[in-house]
C-alpha cells in the first residue's frame, strides 16, 4: 500500500504540485503527441508530403507576387530562398496556432471524463507539428544547395532559434487553448489572426525594412515574439547579420507571454469541465 494521498479542495494548486503531476503524466504527453502525429496524415494519398507541399506553394506564390511583381527587397538574396527560410518556420507557427484552437474539440471528451494535468493539452499539437517542421527542413536544405548559400558558422545558432520558435508557438497555443474552452469566439478569430500575425512578422519582407521605414519603432519591434523567431532563423540560415537586439527582446517577450499564459491556464483549468 502506497502512502500517496490525493487532496481535493477548492482553489488552485501550487505550481510545484502541478509540475510533479506533469512529470508523472509524461508518458501520456508522449502518447498524445504520437497520436497527433500518426493521425494527421491517415487516409491521405500524399501523407507526409503535405508537410512539404504547403510551404512549397506558399513560397512559389510569394516569390511571384512579392518578389517579382511587388519587388519587395530581400536583403540581396534571391527572393525564393529568402522566402523559404521564413515560410517554413512560419508554417510551423501558424499550423500550431490553428491546431491549438482545435485541441479543445479533439480533447473535450477526455477533459470531461478523466483527470490528467490539463496543461499538457496545448503543448501536444505544438510538439506534434515539430515533426512536420523537421520534414520541411529538407525544403530549406534543397533551396540552400540550389542557390549555393553558405551560412557559415552562424548555423550553429540554429537550435537556439528553433527553440525560440517552439516556445513562441507554445506561448500562443497556451493562450488560445485557455480561451477556446470558455469562449467559442476563438474559432472565428484564428483564421484572420493568423493572417495578421504573418504580415506583422518579417515573413514576406525583411526585418531591415522596419529599421529603414520606422526607425523609431525598430527598438521595440522585438516585443512582437514572432518577429525574433522568424528573423533569427532566417539570418542564421542565410548567414546574414544576426539582429541580436531584436531576437533578445523577442526571447524576453516570448517568455513573458508563455509564463503569463501558463499562469492563466492553471487558474482556469479546474473549471474546464464545467464550462466546456
Amino acid at each position, binding site marked *: *500500500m*502506497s*502512502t*500517496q*494521498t*490525493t*487532496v*481535493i*479542495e*477548492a*482553489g488552485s494548486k501550487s505550481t510545484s504540485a502541478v509540475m510533479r503531476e506533469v512529470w508523472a*503524466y509524461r*508518458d*501520456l504527453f*508522449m*502518447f*498524445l503527441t*504520437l*497520436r497527433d502525429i*500518426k*493521425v494527421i496524415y*491517415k*487516409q491521405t494519398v500524399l501523407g507526409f508530403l503535405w508537410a512539404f507541399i504547403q510551404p512549397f506553394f506558399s513560397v512559389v506564390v510569394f516569390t511571384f507576387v512579392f518578389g517579382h511583381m511587388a519587388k519587395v527587397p530581400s536583403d540581396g538574396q534571391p527572393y525564393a530562398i529568402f522566402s523559404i527560410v521564413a515560410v517554413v518556420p512560419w508554417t510551423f507557427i501558424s499550423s500550431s496556432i490553428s491546431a491549438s484552437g482545435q485541441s479543445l474539440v479533439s480533447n473535450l*471528451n*477526455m*477533459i*470531461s*471524463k*478523466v*483527470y*490528467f494535468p490539463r496543461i499538457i493539452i496545448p503543448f501536444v499539437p505544438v510538439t506534434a507539428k515539430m515533426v512536420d517542421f523537421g520534414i520541411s527542413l529538407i525544403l530549406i536544405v534543397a533551396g540552400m544547395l540550389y542557390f549555393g548559400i553558405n551560412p557559415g558558422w552562424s548555423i550553429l545558432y540554429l537550435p537556439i532559434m528553433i527553440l525560440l520558435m517552439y516556445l513562441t508557438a507554445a506561448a500562443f497555443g497556451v493562450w488560445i487553448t485557455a480561451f477556446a474552452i*470558455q*469562449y467559442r469566439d476563438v474559432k472565428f478569430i484564428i483564421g484572420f489572426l493568423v493572417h495578421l500575425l504573418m504580415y506583422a512578422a518579417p515573413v514576406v519582407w525583411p526585418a531591415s525594412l522596419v529599421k529603414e521605414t520606422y526607425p523609431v519603432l525598430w527598438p521595440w519591434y522585438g516585443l512582437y515574439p514572432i518577429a525574433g523567431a522568424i528573423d533569427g532563423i532566417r539570418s542564421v540560415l542565410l548567414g546574414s547579420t544576426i539582429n541580436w537586439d531584436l531576437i533578445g527582446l523577442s526571447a524576453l517577450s516570448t517568455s513573458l507571454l508563455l509564463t503569463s499564459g501558463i499562469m492563466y491556464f492553471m487558474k*482556469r483549468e*479546474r*473549471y474546464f*469541465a*464545467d*464550462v466546456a
Partner: protein
Amino acid sequence: MIRVENLSKQYRIGAKVERARTLSEAVGSFLTSPLRNLRRLQGLTSFREDDEENVLWALKDISFEVNQGEVVGIIGRNGAGKSTLLKVLSRITPPSHGRVSIGGRVSSLLEVGTGFHPELSGRENIYLNGTILGMRKAEVDRKFDEIVDFSGVEKFIDTPVKRYSSGMSVRLAFSVAAHLEPEVLIVDEVLAVGDMAFQKKCLGKMETVAGEGRTVVIVSHQLDMVRNLCKRTILLEDGKKMLDGASADVIDSYLNSAIPEGVKPLFEVEEDSEMDIQIVAGRVLDAEGNLCANFDIYDKITLEIDYHVRSKIIGPTLGFEVYSGGVVLFASFQSDEQSNNSHQYDPGSYRCRMRIPSPLLKPGRYYLVFSIGVPRRMSLQRIEQALIFDVEMITKAGAYLSYSADRPGTIAVPIVWEQWP
C-alpha cells in the same frame, strides 16, 4: 481510504433573459449583446454573494468516510448529485467548498475507452487509453499481453479501431480498464452498459477488485447491482446525504420513499426542442386499447410510446426495463433482434407498441423505465418510473399455485408437462 468533509459544489444556472419590446430596444440589446455574453460566460465560473437565485447547489455539505477495503454504493434520483459527486471525487471538477482526501493510488472510471482514436490501431489505443487512465508506459508494457488476451481481439491488434465492431472496441476498452491496479476505484454505472455477457464480466471483475481489499465507490441507478456488490450504501437527495447505512436498509427505504401512492397508466413529458429525439408520452393499454393499470395475470399487456424525431438520426433505439421490488426483471430494446442497427430516422412523430406476453408477470407492482439512446454510445433520455401498474391473480386464483406471489420464483411461465405411464 476516502474522507469527504463538508463537500459542496455550486453551478450557475441561466439567468433570466429580458425580452425587447420595441425595435429600438431590440437593436439596443443586439448591440450590447457581446457585453452581456461576456458577463454570462465569465459568470459560469465566478460566484458573487448577491445572486443566490441563479446558483444551483449540486452538492451541499456532504461528509462521509470510506474505510480501506470497503465497497460503497451511491444512489439517488436523477439530479440528486450523484454525477457531481463522482466528478468531484474524480478531480474532473473542483468543489466549491470542503475537502476530500483519498489515500492510495486512485483510478476513476466514468466511461471505458476514453480517448480511443478510431484511426489508431488496437495496440496504439491500449497505450493511449492506459496512460490516460494514469498508467505509466512501463506498466502497460508489462500488462500488454494480458490485456490483449482478456479482450480476445489478438488477431486485430494492429488494425485501426474504426474497423472493429462496436462489441470489439468495448471489449478492448474494458480490458484496459480492468487491468488498472488502483487501491481506490471510483466507478460510474456506465460500466454496466453493453450486452449481458459484458455486464457479467464487469460485475465479476468488480467483485474481484472488491475482494482484493480495494476500496471501491460505485455510483449507480441499478439498485440490484448496488445491493449485490456493496455492503454499505449512501443515498443522496437534492445534493444532500439523506441516508448512509447497510445497503438493504438504505435501498428499501429509498424504494418506499420513491414509490408513488398509486399506479400510473400514462405519462407525458414536456417537449424539449433541443433534443434530436425524445420520448414525449407513454401508456399501458389492455387488450381493447384502453388505458389500464390493473391486470390479471392472463391479460395481455400492451405498452405504447410516442416519440418525436426532430432531426435526422442514425441508429437510435428505444428500450424499456421492467422493475419489480427494485430489481430489473428484464429489459427490452427495439434493436434486440437486429444485428445491424443503422436505420436512419427522418424527422416526424413515431409510435411504438410493445406486447408483453402472458402469463409472465407474477402478481405485484411493476415499474417501467423508458430510455432512448444509441446502443453502446450514448444515452439520450431516461425516464424513471414512467409507468406503474399492478398485476393480480383474479381469474384463476389458487388453481395454479406456482404463479401466486408468495411462491418462490420471480416470473410466471407456463411450462408444458408431459407424462408417460
